[in-house]
């Protein structure tokens, strides 16, 4: 197939050459004259576009290239066709040389078997020379076919530069998203501290203040009792907040233990399947932890689920995290929590999918590369 592709490529290059010669002859004058230049150029490019389409079909037919939808502009098309024509013709010359060499080698072989007037020095020199030329020709062919493929990629598909550009855009976006996610989390921590812990502490101090002003010892005692209970609750709350900020169990005991903590603190039953044989990079562990923790909390808080199942497994170089609940669905992927998770996962080149039809169930899947 590839050989056929190369040979067809030689023919299409010939077509290209004929086109340039014919179009050049027909349009040359108009191309030079400023007032008609634009029209002539457009005509030239339109023809070139047809031929380029032919090249594109050749590439996909013989070489199974899959090109994305990609619209090249006129200049790119013309540049491609010129370069392609040139390299195709060169390829034709090399193929011709190889054929010629094959014929010569045949004659040489026949003459060896019929009458050998040649000395062995002659034979050796012929073989060395032929072999060298053959090697050069093959090298040339390889380079030309590679160039053909590269030219096609540059014109029809995303070029190396575009791929790099895309990657850079992707990274810039994910970096901005990560910064945003960090800010959102900080805001949440601030609110946790203020609307939770601080209010409780103020209430506690107020209880103590009232106890001190207590008109009777019994009254003061009752208030102290309340204050004591409140102080214990503040401690619990503080521990929860700190845990939400960063689960220290991750560092000390690893992902599995930290996830165990999530299911212990969850109001609804959590079924946990954990199958990760190899140690994971800590960034991946943290991301996986937050995916599970956020998803489980959402399920308990918003989805009115009565069960959540979590599966964390390593498949080759990917860690897959799946959280499914039996709740009412309708989770908003654009909500701040899920957006933050998405950013966190994207920063590690992972993907996060949220599937939450109204009426449930909600499934959240994260794929994280752990190389």
């Amino acid at each position: 197939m590839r050989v056929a592709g190369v040979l067809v490529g030689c023919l299409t290059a010939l077509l290209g050459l004929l086109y340039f010669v014919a179009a050049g002859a027909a349009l040359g004058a108009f191309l030079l004259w400023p007032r008609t230049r634009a029209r002539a150029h457009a005509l030239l490019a339109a023809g070139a576009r047809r031929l380029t389409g032919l090249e594109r079909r050749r590439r996909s037919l013989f070489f199974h290239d899959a090109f994305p939808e990609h619209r090249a502009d006129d200049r790119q098309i013309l540049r491609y066709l010129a370069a392609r024509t040139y390299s195709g013709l060169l390829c034709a010359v090399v193929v011709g040389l190889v054929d010629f060499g094959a014929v010569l080698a045949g004659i040489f072989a026949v003459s060896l078997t019929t009458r050998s007037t040649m000395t062995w020095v002659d034979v050796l020199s012929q073989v060395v020379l032929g072999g060298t030329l053959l090697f050069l020709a093959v090298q040339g062919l390889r380079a030309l076919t590679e160039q053909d493929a590269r030219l096609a990629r540059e014109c029809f598909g995303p070029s190396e530069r575009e791929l790099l550009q895309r990657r850079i855009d992707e990274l810039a976006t994910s970096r901005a998203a990560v910064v945003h996610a960090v800010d959102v989390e900080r805001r949440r921590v601030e609110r946790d501290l203020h609307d939770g812990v601080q209010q409780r502490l103020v209430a506690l101090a107020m209880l103590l203040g009232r106890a001190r002003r207590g008109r009777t010892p019994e009254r003061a005692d009752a208030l102290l009792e309340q204050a004591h209970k409140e102080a214990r609750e503040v401690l619990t709350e503080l521990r929860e907040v700190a845990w939400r900020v960063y689960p220290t169990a991750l560092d000390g005991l690893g992902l599995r233990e930290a996830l165990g903590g999530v299911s212990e603190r969850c109001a609804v039953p959590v079924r946990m399947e954990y199958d990760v044989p190899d140690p994971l990079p800590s960034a991946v562990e943290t991301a996986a932890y937050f995916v599970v923790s956020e998803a489980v909390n959402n399920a308990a808080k918003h989805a009115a689920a009565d069960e959540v199942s979590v599966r964390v497994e390593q498949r080759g170089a990917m860690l897959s995290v799946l959280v499914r609940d039996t709740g009412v669905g309708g989770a908003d992927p654009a909500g701040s929590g899920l957006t933050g998770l998405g950013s966190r996962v994207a920063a590690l080149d992972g993907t996060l999918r949220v599937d939450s039809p109204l009426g449930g169930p909600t499934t959240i899947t994260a794929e994280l590369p752990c190389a």
Partner: protein
Amino acid sequence: MRVILAEDSTLLREGLVRLLAEEGHEVLAAVGDADALLREVEAHTPDVVVTDIRMPPDHTDEGLRAAVRIRELRPEIGVVVLSQYVERNYAAQLLTSSAERVGYLLKDRVAQVEEFLDALERVHAGGAAIDPEVVRQLLIRTTHVDPLTRLTPRERTVLEALAEGHTNAAIGEKLHISLSAVEKNLNAIFDKLGLHRTTGYSRRVLAVLRYLES
């Protein structure tokens, strides 16, 4: 006195209701957001409104906006706002029109029951109650700004007490100086701040505002 409370933390709201009830005040209503507060103020006639600044839905300055509004519509009602942080901008917004029947306290002040109740009484009596911590921070900020820099340390403490909203007698008691010494200090302060020929209370208010705006 008759009080309306707005505070979104249930725990704290309940605590405040109990505290005020124990002190013999009448709590007309206790609500959890600014809209409900405005409705209740519309329906009742409280002497004093106590409101948290950060409340639902956005947890920004809903309470403060409600407080400013109440001051516009019903200037006879005393308003005390509770703030998480010292926000000079908030304090200034609250005090721009006048510094009568108004209080700006840090939320933590509620924990110091006596001081909180005292501040409420001051506002109810037509005075101002500005949190000592707010005053302290403003002073720190204004030490390098004229004309406050021209005050002696003693005058500075007197101005601080004044900004907190204390009466002359209370200032004297607080600083262990005689009433006439307080008056002398105050006159020196008014002179240095360029507040001549204005009458009693508004002059005090202006001294406080001078502070907040510097």
